[in-house]
Structure formats: C-alpha cells, structure tokens
C-alpha cells in the first residue's frame, strides 16, 4: 500500500472519528497533549529551552551580540527569529534552503513575540543610531509530530525568560544581567476536522485538516497575533470561538513558559 493511499485512509478515519467528537489518540477536541518545558538546556546559549508537546520537540537558543540599530528605529535593538526544521526531526523535511513551511513557522513566532512586546526592544539599545544588542532567537526542531508553531513559541518565550544579556563578556557593562521579559504570548493552534475544531493537532490531523488557525494571546487579555494556514476556511464565528478557547489554553500554558515544568 503506497504512502499516499495509507495517508488517505487515515484521513478518512480521523474525519469519521471527529464527527463523533473523538480523536485517534483518545483526546477530546479541546485537549492538548502533554506539554513540558526544560529551560537552560544549552549552556553555550545566553538563554535556552527545550519545549515538547507530545512527541513534537523544539529547542530554542538565544544569543545576544552587539550590533547596530536599523536606521528607521534608531532607539531600538534588533530581534531576529529563525526556525530550522532540520531533516533529523521528520521524514517530511529535506536538507537545503528553508522551505515555505519553515519560513511560516519563523514568521508566525516572530510576529507573536514582536506584537506582544515580549521584550522591550528600546532597552536593547545602547547608544541611539550607533550601538544596540542584536537578539537572535534560533529555534531548532528535534521532532515533528504536529503543532510545531505552538511548540516553537513556547520554547522561544521560555528561552527569552531565562536569558542573560552578556554585557560583561562584550564589555558593554560591568556585569551581565537578566533579559527582561514583559509579556508572555502563547500560541494555540486549531484545525478544522469536518464540523469539529480541534486544538493541538497531531501530524496526521494536520494532514487531514480542512484549515488551520493559530491565535496568540497574552496575559492581559489581548489577542496579539493570528494565522490561518493550510487549505480550508473558517467562518467569523469559528474565529471568535477559537479565540475564546485560545485564552483558556494560553492562561494554563503561560505558567510553564515562565517557570518551566510539565503539564
């Protein structure tokens, strides 16, 4: 039986289950897989965290280096986000330049971090127009079993929350100091499976999905970013409903992003 045919049979099965409110791994439509975060995984980084949702794992490492502000934002530091969906993490990723999927993950995570004002970029400015910190947020996939976006943002926010500005090493200040994180955006991703909209899709559910919707919320009750992906559609009411659910999950996961641990 070819890969294509077996994927199609699995899709039909997932949709049939969804019609009864069930999922292949026994979860309900509004249930996440187990989530865990291990901050400080990488000693060579200025901050790091390994986030896992089920068998999906993303390791984020933060590096801070002195650089120059962009001409149009002379009073701000620079934030650079990159996701490497390396072929080690899934049979569907190939070596070579970043594919659209990897670029989408980078950009969606980047928007959530930026829109939520997770870190105050003006505090990364050393001398206006002259010198500022460049903060690299590098996310490295170590396992792709669905829902990379949520996992990636969890790893990034946690890594930022545990990062140190290496001011002494680069002779910018007398001592290193913690990077201040002001907000904790959490992304929650949903997929349409027939009439059901299920949270935290697995790899197979993403393949079966008739649309994907990600909503990022912060701890002040604001929606800070959204991204519809894949082929499929959502009604405005779907979107409102998904946003409501994203707040509930977001509040629960935010504790992990702050302190690490598992839930």
């Amino acid at each position, binding site marked *: 039986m070819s890969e294509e045919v077996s994927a199609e049979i699995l899709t039909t099965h997932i949709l049939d289950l969804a019609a009864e409110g069930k999922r292949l791994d026994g979860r309900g439509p509004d249930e996440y897989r187990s989530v865990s975060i291990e901050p400080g995984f990488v000693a060579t980084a200025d901050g790091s965290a390994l986030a896992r949702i089920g068998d999906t794992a993303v390791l984020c490492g933060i590096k801070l280096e002195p650089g120059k*502000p962009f001409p*149009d*934002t*002379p*009073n*701000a*530091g620079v934030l650079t986000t990159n996701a490497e969906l390396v072929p080690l993490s899934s049979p569907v990723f190939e070596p070579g330049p*970043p594919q*659209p*999927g990897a*670029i*989408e993950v*980078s*950009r969606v995570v980047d*928007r959530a971090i*930026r*829109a939520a*004002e997770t870190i105050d*970029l*003006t505090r990364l*400015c050393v001398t206006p127009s002259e010198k500022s910190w460049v903060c690299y947020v590098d996310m490295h996939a170590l396992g792709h079993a669905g829902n990379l976006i949520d996992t990636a943002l969890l790893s990034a926010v946690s890594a930022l929350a545990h990062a140190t500005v290496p001011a002494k090493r680069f002779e910018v200040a007398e001592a290193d100091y913690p990077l201040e994180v002001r907000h904790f955006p959490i992304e929650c991703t949903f997929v349409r499976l027939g009439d059901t909209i299920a949270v935290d899709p697995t790899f197979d559910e993403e393949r079966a999905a008739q*649309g994907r*919707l990600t909503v990022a919320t912060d701890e002040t*009750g*604001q*929606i*800070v*970013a*959204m*991204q*519809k*992906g*894949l*082929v*499929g*559609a*959502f*009604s*405005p009411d*779907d*979107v*409102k409903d998904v*946003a*409501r659910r994203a*707040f509930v999950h977001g509040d629960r996961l935010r504790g992990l992003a702050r302190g690490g641990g598992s839930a």
Partner: protein
Amino acid sequence: MGSVGAKEVPVLLSPEGLRIDGRRLDELRPIRIQAGALRQADGSAFVEWGANKVMAAVYGPREVHPRHLQQNNKAVIQCRYNMAAFSVDERKRPGLDRRSQEISKVIAEAFESVVFAEEFPRTSIDVYIEVLQANAGTRCAGLVAASVALADAGIPMVDLLPAVAVGKVGGAIALDLKKEEDNFGEADLPMALVPQSGRLVLLQMEGHMSPEELAQSLDLGVRGCREIYEKMKQALRERYALTPAAGGAA
C-alpha cells in the same frame, strides 16, 4: 506595526473621527480593477487601490515545473508574490525575501480552498503577483488582482476572493489601512472572504485586540470584502463587454 523605537508617531484619528486621509472608519480607499491587462498571460488583472499598484497574471493549467511537484489527482497551485525593487520607500533587493515567501504560501492556500483543482490533474496553475507600488494592503490587493486574473483565465472556482485588511488606529477599528496607519497603528488584520459561504480562507493578524475588537473587526472586514466583491464582478463584466484583449496596464 514596526514602530518600536521609531522617531515620531503621527496623530491617526481626528477629534471628528476622521482618518489621516479624511476617510471614515468604515471607508475603503478608491479602488480600480482592470481585468485582462496582459496579452501574454492566460488571465490577468491590474489593480490600483489607494496608492497601491499591483499586477497579477495566471498561466495554466500547464505542465508542472519542477516536475516532482506534480500531483496525480489535481492541479498544483503555485503562487509567487513579488515586490519590485522600487515599490517601497527604501529600495528592496530584488528577489523573494522571507515575507514574500510567506505571503505567497498563504495566498496559494487561499486559492487552493476555492479552485476546482481536481478538474486538472497533473497540471500547474501558476499565479504571479507583482507589486509595483506599495502602500499597505498589498497582499489583499494582490489577492484581488489574482482572483480576477484566475477568472479571466477561465479557471473554475467556487467564487471570487475579495480581500481587505482591517486594523486598529487611534484605538478605533478601521477598514483598509494605508501606510501611515499600518506603520503606527495598533493592529492589522488582513482577510480574504468566500462571499458564497461567508467563510474566510485567508486570515492573519498582528497587534493588540480584545476579543470584542476582534469580533468587530471581522464584521467590518466581511462588509468591506462584499463591497470589493461588487467591484471585482464589475471589472469582469467590463472585460467581456469589450472586444477581446484591449490590453494596457495603465
């Protein structure tokens, strides 16, 4: 949205509730759509929308390049959203940056949601969008142009795809942001609607919105899309009222 650490922030909303260019909160910029603007393409359209100028062309169904993307049971829809070097204030290096690649992906997915791709197995439908002059909302303008170009090419679809961005400026929800509003506003939410079903096939958002503001934005955006939908249909009617291929981008 890229205003952190920027030099100065303008006033975006007057005490009378009018915007920087005098529009009301629920008012679109002027929009002009010309179907069939390029003779070489199978379908095409040129859109001037506020200070945006966007050209779209469709080629196909045709052979798939590169070959390994071919699908046995349907056409693949490939989209390339590109900005001309001179389309923005600071010259952009030619070629697709990460932003353009992401936009190409979400636009392709939007069209895959409405095109009857299974009618053309083993082919490619190639959608090209060139932004010639940009002033916020280029992905929506590109979608509108490409959607009209697909219709002009005779590609069967569930419906046309009107698109518009809603945003938040000076604390208020506003339709169809222009550049200064986008740069210094509090939120930006582009969307594309399938008028027939009332569902959204493209939706992105960045900024700060409460759930109530989101609801309000979705409603305003849907109304805006329906207004644009009429202009799209009008452009296609004009196209077929004319003698074929009258041409001329400008």
